[in-house]
């Protein structure tokens, strides 16, 4: 099972992967492409990855959560071109009780954002393109995008 996929993500499939008769709670998180970022309209985006490391890092995150909270974890991140509303990442965490499911799910998405080598190019309604840098905050993100007009496509 790959953690990265170029195909649309089906949350029900992830839920099915972690469903088991001994589990009472399944927490999920679905990250979708928003139509705005830093005050600008987003038309679509492109995710790219350092694929073998991203796969390894996702596997480590899933294993860590599974071991720490005795949960079952399913995790998928989409790469390639995505449109507004598409699911970029989905996580499903099942456990006997809901506490562990929620905490494990939250852990997984935070670690995905913190550790998995994936990058995102946003294509804006004003015709510009920018690499998203979450470490700089949304305002700086705008500045970087604006300051690198050379990256604009189309």
């Amino acid at each position, binding site marked *: 099972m790959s953690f990265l996929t170029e195909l649309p993500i089906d949350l029900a499939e992830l839920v099915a992967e972690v469903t088991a008769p001994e589990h009472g709670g399944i927490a999920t998180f679905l*990250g979708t492409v928003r139509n705005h970022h830093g005050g600008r309209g987003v038309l679509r985006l492109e995710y790219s990855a350092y694929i073998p*490391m991203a796969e390894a890092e996702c596997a480590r995150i899933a294993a860590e959560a599974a071991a720490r909270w005795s949960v079952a974890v399913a995790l998928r991140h989409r790469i390639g071109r995505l449109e507004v509303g598409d699911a970029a990442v989905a996580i499903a965490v099942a456990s006997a009780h809901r506490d562990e499911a929620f905490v494990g799910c939250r852990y997984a998405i935070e670690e995905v954002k913190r550790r998995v080598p994936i*990058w*995102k190019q946003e294509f804006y309604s004003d015709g510009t393109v920018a690499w998203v840098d*979450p470490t*700089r905050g949304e305002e700086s993100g705008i500045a970087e995008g604006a300051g690198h007009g050379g*990256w604009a496509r189309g």
Partner: protein
Amino acid sequence: MSSPTTPSVSVRVLLFASYAERLGREVLELTLPTPATVGQVLREVRALPGGERLPARPLCALNLSHVGPDTPVSGGDEIAILPPLAGG
């Protein structure tokens, strides 16, 4: 133990996303005098054309794991220089 007949190591360096654009390439081979570290690899890359546009301390990975600049490198290692992550 490093043998006296191999005073240098060859490593593969990967660049991604905005960093690949800044240097105009995604992969390069570097040979460094031993003992070498990830930080030395970084200094070599920052000396290349466009390399001055990389930050002084970017995220780095060695053989698919995050590492700090003091991590030693061996021949055949794969070092990746990672722009700010934006997954999720």
